[in-house]
């Protein structure tokens, strides 16, 4: 008789999910699925609201990356107003984007993932968390918390609150930067660089410590998608889409993010609220692609800041002859490199005189009835696509979230880890093995609150399947 193992809820990710692992007659893993059982509804209930409210409303999708939704929504608004925003506004928005990256990445690395690495996958789950980390290495944990605080403080300085600031609006931003506050932010830079240095040292030790396990942590070829700057550098706010395959070949470049719907489709599975975006020319599910730090650091030709560029070169060597790093475990390393880039680039932006400009908002009325905004959120490329009427009332909204774009890859990762680590014949599943499966998911730092924003129709349906795929029992609600 086949057997289904369920892990619910999956811990230390943003949101709620469960994983099911299906065994076959021989008690070998037949399949494993990552089910997202959250439901939000943002695309539907924003219909009828005004364009200018959208950044504030959509930022409420998430408490971790509200600034990413805010920025992307405001960019969709810029598109509909058909305005070019002032130089200072763009630089301030870039600053906000990087602050968002920094605080989110610090959360992912220090608070959520480090307990697995530093305390061990098989350590007591009761203490395998940020509090256990504090007990084991107080200084390291404290520095991580402070690094996140730096990111949050920039967001608060710019937008007057850490979470859900409404500071970015269609046309620009609401308030210019107070010169005195600029120095407060610059004061953080030396400590932030040092902390990111510690994170990079730690991740390299982790690579050695888990050398045997890493090859099974979501190690497969997939497409990699993200923004690159006009000259091919690591990009976070604007630029073009680039698509690279698992062999390091750029298969599409200089794609206009506003036409994302021409390149990507969204598939739906009955067992998850989370959609399955795919690259259209390769169809579903072969069009699997990954976004986020791993993709971004892989696809760019260079990073414009010197220290991060040095790390990128080391990172690329992990890909060996292929020249592309396909293992999802290295999301963590890529995330640390991006933290370094964020700190360096924040310093550059703050030292740019234009950051203190007073022209920050282009005023216009509705000049187009359709607009797309695109930025790189911490977890990957994010699209907001709105249709409005001539008065600026939303008729249709489509949000394509980074976590969703990693959905096929996350499922693949879960299956790979389950197949490797779970020996059904022993009939025993240890906590450490289950946590490895969870940790595989956590590589992607998924944010399920964000990614299940859409309105869907999925009745609660539980199926018990035998090895032949026949339904032995089912419950519907």
């Amino acid at each position: 008789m086949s057997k289904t193992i369920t892990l619910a809820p999956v811990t230390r990710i943003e949101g709620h999910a469960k994983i099911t692992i299906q065994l076959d007659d021989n008690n070998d893993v037949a399949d494993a699925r990552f089910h997202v059982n959250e439901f939000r509804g943002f695309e539907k209930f924003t219909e009828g609201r005004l364009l200018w409210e959208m950044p504030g409303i959509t930022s409420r999708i998430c408490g971790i990356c509200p600034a990413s939704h805010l920025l992307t929504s405001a960019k969709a608004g810029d598109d509909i107003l058909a305005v070019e925003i002032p130089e200072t506004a763009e630089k301030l928005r870039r600053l906000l984007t990087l602050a968002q990256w920094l605080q989110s990445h610090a959360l992912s690395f220090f608070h959520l993932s480090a307990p697995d690495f530093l305390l061990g996958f098989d350590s007591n789950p009761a203490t395998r968390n940020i509090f256990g980390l504090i007990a084991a290495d107080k200084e390291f944990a404290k520095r991580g918390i402070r690094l996140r605080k730096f990111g949050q403080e920039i967001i608060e300085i710019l937008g007057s609150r850490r979470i859900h600031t409404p500071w970015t609006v269609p046309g620009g931003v609401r308030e210019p930067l107070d010169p005195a506050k600029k120095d407060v932010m610059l004061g953080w830079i030396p400590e932030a660089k040092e902390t990111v240095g510690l994170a990079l040292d730690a991740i390299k030790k982790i690579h050695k410590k888990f050398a045997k396990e890493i090859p099974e942590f979501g190690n497969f070829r997939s497409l990699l998608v993200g923004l690159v700057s006009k000259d091919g550098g690591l990009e976070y706010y604007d630029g073009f889409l680039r698509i690279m395959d698992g062999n390091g070949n750029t298969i599409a470049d200089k794609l206009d993010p506003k036409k994302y719907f021409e390149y990507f489709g969204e598939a739906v599975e009955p067992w998850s609220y989370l959609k399955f975006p795919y690259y259209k020319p390769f169809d579903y599910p072969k069009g699997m692609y990954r976004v986020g730090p791993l993709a971004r650091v892989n696809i760019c030709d260079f990073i414009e800041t010197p220290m991060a560029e040095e790390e990128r070169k080391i990172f690329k060597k992990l890909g060996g002859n292929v020249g592309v790093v396909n293992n999802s475990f290295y999301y963590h390393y890529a995330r640390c490199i991006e933290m370094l880039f964020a700190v360096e680039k924040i310093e550059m932006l703050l030292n740019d005189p234009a950051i203190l400009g007073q022209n920050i908002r282009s005023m216009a009325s509705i000049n187009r009835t359709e607009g797309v905004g695109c930025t790189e959120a911490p977890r990957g490329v994010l699209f907001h696509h709105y249709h409005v009427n001539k008065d600026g009332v939303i008729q249709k909204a489509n949000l394509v979230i980074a976590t969703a774009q990693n959905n096929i890859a996350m499922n693949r990762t879960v299956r790979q880890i389950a197949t490797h680590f779970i020996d059904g014949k022993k009939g025993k599943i240890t906590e450490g093995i289950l946590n490895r499966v969870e940790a595989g998911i956590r590589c992607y730092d998924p944010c399920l609150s964000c990614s299940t924003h859409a309105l869907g129709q999925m009745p609660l349906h539980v199926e018990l399947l035998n090895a032949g795929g026949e339904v032995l029992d089912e419950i519907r609600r």
Partner: protein
Amino acid sequence: MSVITFIIDDEHYSAKEGDTILQVTRDNKIHIPTLCYLDGLSTFGACRLCVVEIEGSPKLFPACTTKPTEGMIVRTKTDRLKRYRRMIVELLASEGNHQCAVCVVNGHCELQNLAYEVGLDHVRFPYLFPHKSLDATHKEFVMDRNRCVLCTRCVRVCHEVEGAHVWDIAGRGINCEIIADLNQPWGTSESCTSCGKCVRVCPTGALFEKGASIGEMQKERGFIKFIVNARNKSEWVHTAHEEE
């Protein structure tokens, strides 16, 4: 002009003939919460937040429309009044679609301030989530009926101060709605002068300037008293507006 002497909360006060209880309390810095009342506009008595107790009567009386009589004993802060005022705000919250967190007047809203004042930490009644319309057809302003509390300040200011009488109330009871002209899109109104007075007097985010983002809409309401005084008394003097 005769003077009336009466008691508010155990203290003696005098009022000019024709004054309402609310005017006397305001002149003497006694705070009574209000919502539909606005200095400079006619009184309407719709919201009932300013209800007071008058000794000898089991009924409650709105302070904004009730005139004191000689020897009247008025109480403004009893537990019963506090309970009723809280319930009024609670009912307003449950019958509209008030989402403060994503509202254009978040932080500058009279209804929100009232909720804080009466201690509205939760709502005991089921939310009705009514289907209300948003009218963004005007070039400069937006009417979002989801946030309307039917205080009729907009109706009164447009009729009494601007003289255009764009706004009216249509429907009955809980289905009442503010409408423009002959129940048509605001942008097609021929009587609207786009003066914006209705937007500035609206206590909530029901009327706001197009383009305002979350919490960005701030309103200044003292101008109504200024205009009315200028017109009626030829006095062009700014007085501090009691924001309630």
